[in-house]
């Protein structure tokens, strides 16, 4: 017998449900049973999730292994594989733990709509940032220049000249120099202390880099045996000339302007730690201090002439945005300042009482 929708006046007529959508065939309120997941299913889903988790970690490590051996597996595949496994896991959680499989489809629709929205966010933002250079080339450059912390001021009032990464290294060297000076009973670190401190920090940088790099051994300019994984970076560094290399600017991937013709090795050394001697981009020596890249005006066309000129006219010469060109100008004069003046200031303030005197 099929159910007939009740008419007003019938005893079964419900004004809250005039068409009888929520009645069963007998005309009673339909309390359809909620789905109760079987515990075997839930345990199975958990096991599958744990399996996929361990699997994705192993896959990532296998990829590292292959990439370290120059197997042609790209980062793109790295991302695609890891995200596919994550999506499978997310599907399992949604379908079975969150009951979407046996639930009102409206809930699934909400989830899918949200994910589509995420796609829209990603797509339009990527379209924007990826195509800025197509309108005005300098816009891409400005976008890339941000994010190094340059031009900001720390809580303790110290300015950040150049990228904060280089500044942090400089400060660590200064602190270490003060420590060394204190251990010798000196109040102020002399040039030898600064030299030793710099050596110390750079040794640790190579160790840290070797420890943290997932796959490829970092190709140092002095590294002539990249296949030998058993040698400590340290030893290779020493074998390749070690501190003398730093002192004489040899480890800088052949920057001609590292030499000032200055005999004072302390100076040269203080200069040297501005440079990352491998693939990284160190903007350390290229900009005047205290000028934020983020707030820098860019030339606009069709406005009052000169209104938005950058503080220094030569800044936008190289739209390619590469650093070799930057290094060429403004390098020497800033280096000399940073190496000399900063350590003396820092020790005067911070490190008076720390030593054995």
């Amino acid at each position, binding site marked *: 017998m099929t159910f007939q929708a009740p008419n007003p006046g019938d005893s079964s007529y419900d004004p809250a449900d005039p068409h009888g959508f929520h009645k069963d065939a007998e005309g009673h309120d339909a309390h359809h049973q909620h789905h*109760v997941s079987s515990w075997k299913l839930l345990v199975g889903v958990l096991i599958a999730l744990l399996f996929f*988790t361990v699997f994705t970690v192993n896959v990532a490590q296998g990829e590292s292994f292959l990439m370290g051996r120059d197997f042609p597996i790209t980062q793109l595949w790295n991302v695609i594989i890891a995200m596919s496994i994550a999506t499978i896991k997310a599907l399992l959680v949604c379908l079975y*733990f*969150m009951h979407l499989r046996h639930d009102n489809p*409206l809930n699934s629709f909400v*989830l899918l709509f949200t994910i589509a929205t*995420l796609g829209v966010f990603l797509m339009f933002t990527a379209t924007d940032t990826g195509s800025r250079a197509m309108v005005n080339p300098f816009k891409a450059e400005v976008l890339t220049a941000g*994010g190094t912390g340059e031009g900001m001021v720390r809580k303790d009032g110290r300015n950040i000249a150049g990228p904060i990464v280089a500044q942090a290294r400089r*400060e660590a060297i200064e602190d270490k120099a003060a420590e060394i000076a204190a251990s010798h009973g000196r109040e102020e670190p002399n040039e030898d202390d600064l030299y030793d401190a710099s050596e110390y920090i750079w040794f640790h940088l190579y160790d840290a880099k070797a420890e943290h790099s997932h796959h490829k051994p970092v190709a140092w300019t002095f590294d002539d045996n990249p296949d030998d994984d058993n040698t400590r970076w340290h030893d290779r560094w020493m074998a390749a000339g070690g501190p003398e290399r730093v002192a004489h600017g040899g480890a800088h991937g052949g920057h001609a302007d590292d030499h000032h013709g200055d005999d004072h090795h302390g100076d040269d050394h203080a200069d040297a730690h501005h440079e990352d001697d491998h*693939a990284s981009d160190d903007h350390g020596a290229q900009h005047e201090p205290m000028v934020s890249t983020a707030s820098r005006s860019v030339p606009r066309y069709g406005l009052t002439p000169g209104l938005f000129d950058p503080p220094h006219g030569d800044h936008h010469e190289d739209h390619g945005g590469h650093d070799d060109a930057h290094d060429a100008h403004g390098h020497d004069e800033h280096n000399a300042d940073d190496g000399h003046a900063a350590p003396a200031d820092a020790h005067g303030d911070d490190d008076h009482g720390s030593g054995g005197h």
Partner: protein
Amino acid sequence: MTTIDPSAVRNEGKPLPRWKTYVQGHHWRNAEDEFDAAKFGMWLFLATEILLFAGIFVGYGLLRLKHPEAFINGSGYLSAKIGLINTIVLLISSFTVAMAVRCAQLNQQLWLKINIVITVICAAAFFTIKLAFEYVPKWSEGKRPGVLFSYPYATDPHEPLWWGVYYTGTAIHALHVIIGAGLLIWVFVRSFKKIYGPTNYAMVENAGLYWHLVDLVWIFLFPLLYLIH
């Protein structure tokens, strides 16, 4: 919500458990509709949560495209082993929440409580591991976001950006872990009054949905932060 006074309804001299006397709010046609609406509302809320994390994922993607070297170095600083342990902890907790919902549906009051307690313990473990093995050591080494950065051994000038993404993503996620654990503790406390049972478990279900969302977000954060390099 109108409920029948339990003391007025006697069951062989004992008051009925509160889930048996639960009546839907007067403006609902039936308990079914009330439950569905509550769940749909929870899903709408989860949608906003996903959009919150969408901002972080989009930021991650774009910054990674701009500064791949910094992000490669960055994931190198993290231990995949710690991430793996935390993922396993969260997956187990997600399972126990699903089991807790099942227990409420089947009126297994003791196992409902046990499952929720396991979940909350997992949440505490996740947060402790995160704090003790990740946040505290990394922060004290100077691996910090933005202007706070003071780690001397970074090799890419954009590494503070990576730490910004890392701390924002994981800290907002950790906040959700805390909130989710709080919700589950609330459910746990109320479960002693026998409030949850086959006819009334919307609260367990929705707290569980929230917890699964925490798990879902971590399922994506884990490979993005720890594995891709």
